Every structure is written in C-alpha cells, then in structure tokens.
C-alpha cells in the first residue's frame, strides 16, 4: 500500500471531516483532523490496520495555534496525523485507550507546550526536573515565563 | 560437549598472547601516536588576510568566536576597518565548521591534541589583525561557502 492509495482510502472510508490529506512522497502521507475527533480518527486507524505502531507525538508552536502531530506507521507507510489546537482552548483528549504507547508522548506535550490532555491516566511532569517552575513551557515560542527559565541558568 | 571446550579456545588465545604476542600498547608518554593529517586538533588563526567578516562567528555552533569590527576615520580622511577577534577555546567542539566557512582561509586546524590546561583562562585567545584587508564580503550572502 503506497501513500497516495492510503490517502484515497482514508478520504473514501473515513466519515469525519478531514482538514488536510495529501501524500508528498511515496512512503509519507499527511492527514489533518479537527481537534474534537482525534480519538475517532485514532480508532479508525487502529480498526483498519490493526495494532498500529505509534512512533512519537510532536508538538509545534505555530504562533496562533499548537500543532500536535501523531506519527504512525500504518501498513508500511508513515502516516502523520496533524491536529491543530488553538492556544485559547489549549486542550485535546487522549488516545491512550486506543494506543497505550501514546501515554508517554502525551505527557511530554503537556510538559513542553502546556496543552492539557483530557482523560490522561497519569498527567505528571515527564521531561523536566521536579524543581521546574510551574507554567513555564520551554518549547513555546511566546512569553509564558520564558525569560525566567532562561536567566536562572544564565 | 563442544561447548564445554570453549574455555580451551579462550585459554589458548590467552597463552598465545602471554608467550608470543607483543603487547598492542602505545607507551603513551614515550611513544606518541601521530594523528592522521585530517585530524582536527588545536585551532590556528593567522590574522594576515582576515577581513573580520564574521562568517565564522555566525556558523560556529558553540559561539566560540567573537568578532569586533569598527570603521574608523583616519586623520588623512582614509576610512579603515579595524577590530579584533576573541576565541573562547574552552567552548570549541573541534567541528571545523569555522575553517570550512571562512573565505580567507585564515582559520586552520593543526593536529596537536594535547591541550589540557590547569585553569580555563588559558584557553582564551585574543588576536588583532594589524591591517584588515578591506575586500568587503557581504555577510548575508545566500550560499553556504
């Protein structure tokens, strides 16, 4: 199954709204889904291609909103599921019931970007040391206390 | 049973190494290994044809180089750039990018690797080119040299 076939398959079979679906390379395809039905899409992927291997979840501060990208390997094709989370809402629901390995990567998203994962079984701090000041998200481009994170080790 | 005699294979290697083989050791302080000629050791900066363009400063991943450049007006009206370069060599990670980016070839790497110092101030280097060759090279050109 090459990436373009996978994208057509998703477009035809998936009944939810797709904000983005294209396959720039033979083995790489990007699919976009609105914030609400990330769980629905995850369920769809797992039903179609069995226990899918979730490589990692990337967070990316795009100014207005934060991109949360789930990198799956489905049927030999690298499927990247992009979900835009508006900074005002700052919430996304978890996919751990469907893909348990996501638990670790979701905690990293909360740590680094402050996106609260709804229904996460173990929402503790993951990456940073215990004495890291609350509310300071290092990988966010805007303010949220970046300077003070900077100067205490300047 | 063959697995039982595995010990014998190792024992033979050990005996051979004990009796016959010469130790594979470089007696460091007395015999010193000369590194291959591509080895990146101590950085050597010759200020002769450096134009203080700052390309090296921009590409250095560890912010080792600090280029200070001023254009001053001599009494007889001729303009001249003058300045100096500071190297914090204790930050240098020997990646060779500055030598690769520098257009004038004024930064080179020698193969000398014995650089241990007792305190960090000995690593600082400050060089001042007497006359800066004014062949201006624009800083933000598009292509990695």
């Amino acid at each position, binding site marked *: 199954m090459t990436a373009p076939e996978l994208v057509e398959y998703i477009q035809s079979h998936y009944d939810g709204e797709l904000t983005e679906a294209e396959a720039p390379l033979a*083995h*790489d395809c990007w699919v976009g889904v609105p914030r609400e039905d990330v769980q629905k899409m995850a369920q769809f992927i797992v039903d179609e291609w069995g*226990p899918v*291997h*979730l*490589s*990692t979840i*990337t967070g*990316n*501060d795009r100014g207005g909103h934060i991109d949360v*990208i789930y*990198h799956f390997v489905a049927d*030999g094709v*690298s499927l*990247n599921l992009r979900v835009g989370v508006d900074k005002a809402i700052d919430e996304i629901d978890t996919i751990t019931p469907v893909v*348990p*390995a996501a*638990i*670790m*990567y979701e905690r*990293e998203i909360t740590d*680094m970007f402050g996106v609260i994962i709804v229904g996460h*079984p*173990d929402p*503790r*701090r*993951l*990456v*940073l*040391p215990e004495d890291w000041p609350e509310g300071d998200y*290092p*990988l966010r481009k805007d303010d949220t206390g970046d300077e003070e994170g900077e100067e205490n080790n300047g | 049973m063959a*697995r*039982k*005699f*595995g*010990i014998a*294979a*190792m024992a033979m*290697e*050990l005996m051979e190494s004990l009796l016959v083989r010469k130790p*594979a050791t470089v007696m460091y302080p007395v015999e010193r290994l000369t*590194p*291959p000629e*591509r*080895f990146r050791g101590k950085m050597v900066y010759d200020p002769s044809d450096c134009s203080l363009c700052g390309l090296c400063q*921009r*590409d*250095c*991943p560890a912010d080792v180089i600090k280029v200070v450049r001023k254009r001053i007006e001599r009494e007889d009206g001729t303009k001249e750039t003058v300045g100096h370069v500071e190297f914090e060599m204790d930050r240098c*990670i*020997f*990646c*060779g*990018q500055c030598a*690769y*980016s520098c257009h004038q070839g004024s930064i080179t790497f020698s193969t000398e690797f014995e650089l241990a110092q007792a305190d960090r101030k000995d690593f600082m280097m400050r060089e001042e080119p007497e006359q800066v060759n004014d062949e201006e090279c624009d800083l933000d050109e*598009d*292509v*990695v040299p």
Partner: protein
Amino acid sequence: MAKLSFPIGPQHPALKEPENLRFSVDGELVVDADIRIGYVHRSIERSCSERNFVQDVYLCERVCGICSNAHTQAFCLAVEQIAEFEIPERAQWIRMLMHEFERIHSHLLWLGVAGHEVGFESLFMYVWRDREVIQDILEMVSGNRGHYAMTILGGVRYDITDEMATKIREGVDFLRGRAEYYADIATSEQTFLDRVEGVGGLSTELAHELGACGPVQRASNVAYDVRRAFPYLQYEKVDFPIRTSELCDVLGRTLVRVQEVIDACDIITQCLDMMPEGDINARFPRRVPEGEATVRVEAQRGELIYYVRSNGTDVPERVKIRTPTLANLPASLEMLIGGQIADIPIAFASIDPCFSCTDRMVVLDDVNSGDTETMTWPELVKLSRNR
C-alpha cells in the same frame, strides 16, 4: 529476607550513564523494576530551534556519542527532503560508508561492555583492542574519533581517496575475521554462556507490543529493518540479510549484533566497489524553503525518527528527535522483572541503552520513595498488555 528496595543510583560502574534504576528485590529475585532518567536532558530541541541549520547539524550530532553519525544522517536527510535537494551520488555512498563504520564501532563497543558486565574482562579487552582498528579508519577518513562532522548539509565534507580505500578494505577484512571469532567465542565459552543464555527473555509478541526496535526486536524474531522498510540513501542497491534469531534472550541479541558487524563489513566492501566518481558536496542554500519532513533511519540501537519543520528562514522552527533507546525501555524493564540481581546489568545492557539519546527528550517517572499508587511504568506495561 525482607523485601529490600535498592536503587542503582545515577553513579554506578555498570551504567556508563546516569540513570536511576529502582528495584524492589525479594532475596536475589527482582520483583519490581522502575527507572528514572533525565539526568542527561540538555534541552537540545530548544537549542536546535535557536540556531541556524548549519549549526544544528553539529548539535544533533552531539545528542549521543556512539550513534552520532546516525543523528546527522537523519537530520540532513530531513532537511534535504524539505528543500527537495538532491545530493551527489558519491556523497550518498560515502554517507552509507560512515553509517556502517559507526555500526561496527557501536556493536563492537557493546560486545566489549557486555563482557565487562558479566565479568569476562578478557573479552572486553580483546574486543576493544580490535575496535581501535575501526576507530583509526574513522579518524583517517573524517578527522575525529567520535563526532565525525563528515555529513554536512548538501553532501559530505571529505572524500575517500584511493589509498584510504585500500586501508579501509584491509581493516574491514581483519574486523570481519575477528567478528566471526567472537561469534563462536560467545557461543562456546561456557561461563559466558551461563550468564547470557536464557537471561532477559523477551517473547516475540511482547517485543512487538512494547514497540522494541533494532537488534532487541530482531533478536525476538521480528524481521523489521528501516533500511529495508523505508530505504534511504542507496540501500536498495546493496544486498544484506536482516539478521534475526529466535533465542529471544541476551545471547540472541549478542549474536544478532555480531552478525550485523559481519554484514556491515560486507556492505562496506560493496559500497567501495560501487562508489561512482564525482564531486562530494553541492552548495546547500542557507535558507530552507518552508516545509516539514519525517525521516526514519536505522541507527545501531534501532529506529531513529527525526521530524523537522522549517519556516523559510535559516533557523528551523521545530526539530523533534525520537531515539531508539526510548522504544526499548519498556522492553528492558520487562526483561528485568523476574530475573536475578546478578542479571540486572547484563539484561539492562542488552538493549544497549544510550541515555544521552533518550534523556534528550523523555524521563520515565518513577514511584518516589513513598509507594504512592500513581501509575508506574510496570503498571503501564501491564495496561498495554491486557488491553
């Protein structure tokens, strides 16, 4: 004996790197294992998005001292994929050479450390003595024993001249012979076998489920190799088998790694034969057009994933690194539980942990001294198993 919980603290001879393994032990039997790392988290992702692409190559290289070339390969491939930049073919072959050189160096290093963990000092000494051969080749070719700075954006920095090629062939043949010798030492040396056979078992389903990757997965009979699944550089033109073994234990991993050293030697000789003439690097634009890319590379420990996103300037907007050791961690804890204290170092070392990679990104939280009921890693593993 009372249930004793004892930490192998950040500072421990068996662990070349700081991580805190907390074990609760019943006599000599390990009942529960937990891990806390994050002592090596150097905020590389944040620094990557503050430096331009040229500098990031060297930053990504220093994520890990052993698989430094794998990281530069992945980063350069991702950035070149965004810029749709085709690097000259000779450069691709030289990059593959460096990739396989480092595989030999990393696997030989691991074999020596495995001998050290088990108290077999002579194997440690002999394997590391032979490893110096590959270190000399790397130093001759790239100019440094560790972080080679050979792979740069747009190709490769140095060329492989002819007399270097002959030296490489000699060194690789010598190493190939030694690798075979170590393969039958590992299978016949009785005391080494006692410590390695049947230790740190990981069944095939568990390896699949816990997402183990690289030699750990292949030693549990899962034939998955990124060089075959997502071929990059010129790996289609080179033939090499995917080495698996159904032993599912530390001995299986040892054999898979030693056989991979032999395959790497063959790949190197094939690369040297098929390498076309031509220049070795093209001028890479300083500003990378907007775009993003996910690239997978078969590092020595498993599948290494890079996600790079650029916004048109010469500074990347986001660099995400997922290292193979992280994927192998749940599997490693699974191996430790039920084993002996004496097996902890060798079972844990069998996944060839590289915490400077893993920490760069993630800490697995542990149960602090009070036994609170929050989800510890083993519970998560159980959760995923009986899903």
